[in-house]
């Protein structure tokens, strides 16, 4: 199982993790080792098997539509890296003239 540089770049963008060019070759090698491990599954006959998404066969539990959480905006904002007037601050997202 070989990964191309282009594939690695695409995965790293999808995952929003910057990967420096100089670590491409070592990372590719590690990922390829792991992907090779997956090939063992090809031998298993799963033609009549349903996918198991979860160990419990549960339906989504419901509850009464009542407010259970109190507003704790200030408490929650304490952990944010950048805050102004009760808002999370990020770099400008939409380009264009104001």
């Amino acid at each position, binding site marked *: 199982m070989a990964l191309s540089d282009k594939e690695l770049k695409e995965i790293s963008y999808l995952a*929003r993790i910057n990967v420096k060019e100089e670590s491409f070759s070592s990372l590719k090698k590690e990922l390829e080792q792991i992907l090779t491990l997956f090939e063992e599954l090809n031998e298993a006959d799963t033609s009549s098997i349903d996918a198991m998404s979860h160990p419990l066969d549960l339906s989504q539990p419901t509850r009464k539509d009542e407010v259970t959480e109190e507003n704790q905006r200030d408490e929650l904002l304490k952990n944010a890296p950048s805050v102004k007037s009760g808002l999370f601050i990020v*770099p400008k997202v939409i380009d264009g003239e104001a």
Partner: protein
Amino acid sequence: MDLHKLSLKEQLEGLKNSEFTSVELTSHYLKRISDHDEKFNSFITVTGDNALIQAQAADERYKKDKSLPLDGVPIAHKDIFCTKGVRTTCGSKMLSNFEAPYSSTVYTKLDEQGMVMLGKTNMDEFAMGSSNETSYFGPVSNPWDTEYVPGGSSGGSASCVSAELAPIATATDTGGSIRQPASLCGLTGIKPTYGRVSRYGMIAFASSLDQGGVVARSAEDAALILEGMSGHDPKDSTSLKLPSPDLTKNLKNSIQGMKIGLPKEFFEKDMPSYVEQSIQEAIETYKSLGAEIVEVSLKNINLSLPIYYIIAPAECSANLSRYDGVRYGYRCEDPKDIEDLYMRTREEGFGAEVKRRILIGTYALSAGFYDAYYLKAQKCRQLVANDFTNAFESVDVILSPTTPGTAFKAGEKSDDPTEMYLQDIFTIPANLAGLPGISIPCGEHDGLPLGMQLVGNSLEEDKLLQFAYSYQSNTDWHKKMPNI
């Protein structure tokens, strides 16, 4: 008096009978932590002041004859359980300054029963690792020999209990992270049935596999605390709608006539002769206690490792997308735009193993590969679960080694991720099927301990603990502690 030599149960009785106070007991452990933990690095945060306040409150309740079920006994919590007012790091730079605005249900339940928190234990970053070498807060060492790893990801919990810096610790297990370190540190570690222990406030790695439990010095201590942290929680949609099980009721019952299954696929593997010998001796002990030994087949068990390394990274890539540098956690310096903020925050905030798993999971879930990897893995997962269902029609528990050997040296397996993954070859299947598993000490080699694993049918933690208690009542392996 060497208070740390008392079992947790004896400590609880000593407190009830006013032989010592919780402040004395807590101070004793805090002193041991400050005297010894430099060698092991098993704690990320020690909460000494808080602990003494909790201990004083417990002592007051004892004086007024209003004590709580686990009042005044200290515990260490894995730093994956959120604790309001005390930082929760999950072993990551990403959360190195994170103070959760709420507490996990596990912490809250044990707190409400009077337990005193000594601190938060070190762990592999986001619980990803089998050697506790991936923590942002530095590696943890094994108290039996500090050149060796304690196992992971609950390495700090195992290390501090093994060094008797805490009588017991909480831990979590996604593919073996309770049982493998328990085996490598000579402890009793139990992962209950998926859904027994609430995951609310337990930082998510792979949501369909993660489950909380404990590492302890005996099955009896483990039963006491696991019972206290189990039970239905409306805040966790995957929490089983069952009351907390009574885990001490059948603990001391005989295992006469009960059946132990030996999966032939496990015993066909090449294993070091000392592992085989220890396991054979354990089997003989069980025979002498009246258990019947039956060969069983888990014919798809060899698929477990690749299934796990698709499903766990896939779920982790989704769960860890929340660390974006916006609402909490680490943010990179001077991001030039929003993409740069995401890309560099996650590059700098996560360690190598976490990034590797997110990338693998992203790949496995990406368009064009989903059916070949994730869907295929989920189908194979069902095959493994079916094997267990069939096996439990004829046996009560399934016995195997917990790990392929004793602890390895730090750095020995860091270069090859797949070599490290083999550590969990015996433990992963129980997570895939959502079944309870326990590791108990059953031997040693070159001065390092080794464990055996028992896996039980769904909801049968009581039976696992009964088997473990029965073994521990007739052997001394669990009583051996390292000289620190």
